[in-house]
C-alpha cells in the first residue's frame, strides 16, 4: 500500500501527493502508521528542495508575496510547492483556506502544487504534519517549497524548525502591537522584508527598512539578516530577493550549514516526539490513569510541588 502510493508520488502524480499529505496530517493512528511507512519508503528521495518559510502579521501580504516569489521560481524553470497554513476556529475546528485566492499566477500553473492546511491541534504558525509534508513535496520532485505560516509570530521556533530560510514580512507604520510580537522573530529571521513598498507607502517603507537595517546590525552584529523593501505590485526588490535566496541556498549547502541546521531540526523534532510518545504512554497506563488526577489535585491545592508530582508519576510508571 505504502509502496504503491510512494511510487505514484515519486512519479509526479499530484493526486498521490495530495492524499499523502492527508495521511501525515491525520489524527487517526492507523493513518499515521501508514504515513510513517510511506515516509520511510520516500526518505531517500527527500532533502533536495530549498525550504523557505514566510511569516508576518495578518495583512502583511504573505500570500501575494508567495505568488510573486513562486512566479520568479517558475520563470527560472523550477517546480514549486506551496504549503499555506491557516488558523482553525477553536470553537468549531473549521477553517477558511483562502490562500489560493491571492495566488492567481501560481494557481494557473501546472508546475505548482498548492496545499492549504489548518493549524488545528497546534499553537504555532505551522500545522500538524508540516514538516512531513515538506518531505513529501521533495520526494515528488519540487525544488522550492514555500511555507506560508499563520500570522501569529508567537511560536517562531516552530516555524524556524520546518525551513532552511525564514523570511519575515512587515509593513511600514505597523502598530506597536505588531512590533511587540516581532522582536522574537527579528532574532531568528534570515530575511526581513518591508512589504507593500509601492505608491504612497514607498517612501515610508524605505525609511522603515533603513531603521530595521541599523537596528538589526546592533541586535545581530555577526550575521545580520537580509533586509529590503519589496512590492508584489510593482515587483520592486523581487528579482533581488530571488537571487539572494538562490545564493543563500548554495552558500548554506557549500558551507555544510544546511545539513547542520536540518540535523538540529531533526533533533528537536525527535525531542518533542519523545515527549509526545511518553505522554501518550502515560495517559494510556492504568496506574498513571489512577494516580494522575490525585496528583493534579494535590498540586492544585498547593500540597505538592509540580516537579515532585511528576517524579512520583514517573516512578509509578517506570519504577524508581
Amino acid at each position, binding site marked *: 500500500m505504502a509502496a504503491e502510493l510512494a511510487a505514484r508520488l515519486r512519479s509526479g502524480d499530484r*493526486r498521490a501527493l495530495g492524499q499523502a499529505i492527508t495521511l501525515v496530517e491525520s489524527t487517526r493512528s492507523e493513518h499515521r502508521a501508514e504515513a510513517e511507512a510511506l515516509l520511510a519508503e520516500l526518505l531517500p528521495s527527500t532533502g533536495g528542495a530549498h525550504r523557505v518559510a514566510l511569516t508576518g502579521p495578518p495583512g502583511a501580504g504573505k500570500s501575494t508575496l508567495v505568488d510573486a516569489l513562486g512566479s520568479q521560481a517558475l520563470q527560472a524553470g523550477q517546480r514549486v510547492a506551496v504549503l499555506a497554513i491557516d488558523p482553525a476556529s477553536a470553537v468549531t475546528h473549521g*477553517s*477558511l*483556506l*483562502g490562500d489560493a*485566492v491571492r495566488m492567481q499566477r501560481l494557481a494557473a500553473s501546472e508546475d505548482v502544487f498548492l*496545499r492549504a492546511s489548518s493549524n488545528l491541534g497546534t499553537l504555532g504558525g505551522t500545522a500538524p504534519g508540516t514538516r512531513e509534508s515538506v518531505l513529501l513535496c521533495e520526494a515528488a520532485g519540487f525544488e522550492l517549497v514555500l511555507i506560508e505560516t499563520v500570522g501569529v509570530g508567537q511560536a517562531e521556533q516552530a516555524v524556524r524548525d520546518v525551513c532552511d530560510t525564514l523570511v519575515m514580512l512587515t509593513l511600514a507604520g505597523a502598530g506597536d502591537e505588531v512590533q511587540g510580537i516581532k522582536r522574537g522573530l527579528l532574532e531568528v529571521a534570515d530575511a526581513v522584508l518591508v512589504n507593500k513598498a509601492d505608491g504612497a507607502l514607498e517612501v515610508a517603507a524605505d525609511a522603515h527598512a533603513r531603521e530595521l537595517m541599523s537596528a538589526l546590525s546592533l541586535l545581530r552584529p555577526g550575521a545580520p539578516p537580509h533586509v529590503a523593501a519589496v512590492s508584489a505590485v510593482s515587483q520592486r526588490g523581487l528579482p533581488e530577493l530571488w537571487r539572494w535566496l538562490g545564493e543563500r541556498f548554495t552558500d548554506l549547502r557549500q558551507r555544510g550549514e544546511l545539513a547542520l541546521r536540518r540535523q538540529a531540526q531533526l533533533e528537536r523534532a525527535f525531542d518533542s516526539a519523545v515527549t509526545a510518545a511518553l505522554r501518550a504512554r502515560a495517559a494510556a497506563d492504568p496506574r498513571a490513569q489512577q494516580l494522575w488526577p490525585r496528583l493534579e489535585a494535590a498540586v492544585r491545592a498547593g500540597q505538592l510541588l509540580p516537579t515532585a508530582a511528576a517524579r512520583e508519576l514517573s516512578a509509578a510508571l517506570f519504577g524508581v
Partner: protein
Amino acid sequence: MSEESRARFRQLVQAETGKPPEELTTRTPAGVERKLLYEADDLDGVAHLGALPGEFPYQRGVRASMYGGRPWTIRQYAGFSTAEESNAFYKQCLAGGQKGLSVAFDLPTHRGYDSTDERARGDVGKAGVAIDSVEDMKRLFDGIPLSDVSVSMTMNGAVLPIMACYVVAAEEQGASKSSLSGTIQNDILKEFLVRNTYIYPPAASLRICADVIEHASSALPKFNPISISGYHMHEAGATAALELGLTLADALEYVRAVSERGLHIDRFAPRLSFFFGIGMDFFTEVAKLRAARLLWATLLRERYAPQDARSLELRTHCQTSGISLVAQDPLNNVVRTAFEALAAVLGGTQSLHTNAFDEALALPSDASARVARATQLILQHETGVPGVVDPLAGSYFIERLTQDLADGARQVLAQIEAAGGMVRAIESGLAQRLIETSAAERQARIDRGQDVVVGVNRFKHDDQSSFDLRRVDAARVRELQAARLAELQQSRDGARVTASLAELKEAAARGANLMPPTLAAIRARATVGEVSEALAQVFGRHAAMSHAVRGVYQMQFQADEGWQKLRARTAALAGRFGRQPRILIAKLGQDGHDRGAKVIASGLADLGFDVDLGPLFQTPAEVARRAVDGDVHLLGISSQAGAHDELLPALFRELAALGAPEIQVIVGGIVPAQDQPALLALGVKAVFGPGSALPDMAAALLGLLESTPSGAGRGG
C-alpha cells in the same frame, strides 16, 4: 402627540391586541426597529420638510413636474447570444413600448476576452451579448438609429473598447456625436467591492474611468459617462444605509479623480448618473431614493459649491432586486417585482428596469420579458400613481425614514473617509467586510426563518411548474464569433491595427487620455480582446482579492438545536476521517458573482468544515488541480451565469484525468430544473438553487459524506 393621546393610543392597542405598542414593533430585514405608529413628534430633526421638488435639496425629486411632465423611462436590461439575436429582441422591445435600450454584455466581453479566448469557453453569449469588434456593435444596432434611441451599456472592465465600439458604430451610421444619448456604467470601484468584472488594478482602472468621463465632457455632451451603482451592493446583501453610504463614497472618489485633472465641477457633475437596487422592504426603498438625492445635493454643495444647479441633482436608474427573486414558485416573482417597481416610482426614479419572473432560473424568455415590461406600462397607464409629484411626502413615517437613512449613510461615509477614502477602504478590505457581514447576517436570518420569504422558508408549495426558458448554446455562439473574427482579420489592414495598438500602449505608459487612441484602434478594426490585452501589457491584470467573513452563522445559530446537531454530525465525521470534512468552493469561468459562494463558505466553516476557496475566473483544469491538491471530499461549484452546461463536463474530464473521479461534485446557483437531469447523469451529486438555506444544504452534504465508505481521499 400629547401625553394624553399617547396614553389613549396605548389603551386602544392594548384593548385590541392584549399587548402594549412597544411589543408590536417589527424589525426590517436590515435589522432596523420599526415602531407601530409614527406621528408628528417623529418629524423632530427632519430637515428640509418645506422644500419643493426640482429645488435643493431635491429629496422630493429632481424635476418640479416629475412624471406629470414626462414619465420615467422604461429601460429593460437585455442582451444574449449574438448581436443579430439581441438586435431582433431590441426591435421587438421598442415596438412593445420600451423607450430606451440597455445592453447586457456577456462575461468574456466584460473581462476583455475575445470569444475565441480559452478563458471565454462556456461563457460566450450566455449572460449577455458577445461583442468582439465594432462590426458586432454595428450588427447590434442595425436599423436602430442611435441619434434617436438612448442606449445604456453595463460595461466597466472593458469600458474603453466598448465605448469606442459604440461611438464608431454611431459614426458609421451617420449619427453626430452631439446627438448620442445614453449611459455607460463605467463604475469600476464597485467592481472591486462586489461584482468583480474588472480587468486592471484599482489605480489604472480609476484612471480609465476618469479618462472616459473627461472625454465625454467635451465630445459627447448628452451622454452619461458613468452610472454610479449601489445596485450590486444591494444585491450582494448590503443594507439600504450601507448601499447609500458606499455609493456616495464611490461618487465622491470619482468627482475627486476628475476634479484633479482641472475640470470644473459644472463641466461633468450634471452628467453623473446613479443606479440603485430596489428590494422588498417597501418604505425603506422609497425613502432610500429620497435620502440619496438629499444627501448628494448636500454633500456636493458643501464640498464643491457648484454654480450650475444641475450639478447637485442626483438622477438615477433603478432595477428591481434580483436576489429577491426565487426559484420556488417563480410566478410569485411577478408580484415581488411589481411592488418593487412601485417603490422605485414613489421614490422618484428617472428610469427603471423590472426583472422577469424567471430570472432566478435563466435569462428572460420572450414571454417573461413581456410581463416585466407590462408591469411598468400598467403602473404608468392604469394606476394613476404618476399623476402626483412625490405623493408620500409629509408622511411622518416616510420623512423620518428618509432622514434616518441619510444619517446612517453619512456615518458609513465618515467611516470610509476615516479609512482614507474609498480606494484605501477597498485595498484594506474594510468596505468589502462591511458588505459581507451584512450579507451573511441577512442570509442567516432568512435561513432561520426570521425574515420570511414566501415559498422558500414559509408557505412552501411543492408543485414545480415548468416554464419555457431561454437557452443559449455557448459553443454555437463561439463558433459563429470565431468565424466573424477570422473574417475581420482577413479584411482589415493588419499594419494599421498593429500601429494603433502600439500607439495605445504608448499613451497608456505616458498617462495620456486613452479614449482617442482606443477610438483609433477600434476604427482600424482592432478587437475588444486586442485592445484589452494591449492595456494589460502596460497595467497588468488584477488578481481577485476575495474575503470571507467568519463566525456570523455560529453567532446567529449557536442556540439552535438543529445547528447543534449539524455540528455534532460534522465532528463525528472529523473523527472518522481523521480530519475535518473538507470542501473546495469554486467558481468556474468569467462569472464574478461570489456572494453566494462566500456566504456558503462562511457558513460551512462555522459548522466545522475545512473550506478551500479558489481564485475567481478559473478554468476547469485549474479547479480540478485545487481539489486534488487539497484532497477535498467535496467540490462545490457556484454557477450564476449559465456556463455550467459546458464547463461542468470539462471539469469531470479534468478530475478523471488527475485520477480523482471520487471527489463528489455539487452545484449551487442558477441552474434551470431542465438542466438538472443532465448534470446528475454527469455525476453531480446534488444541485442547490437560489434561496437554498445553508442548514439544509449542510445537512445534504453531511448525508453525502456519511453514506460514503471512507470519504473521498485515501486518508478518509
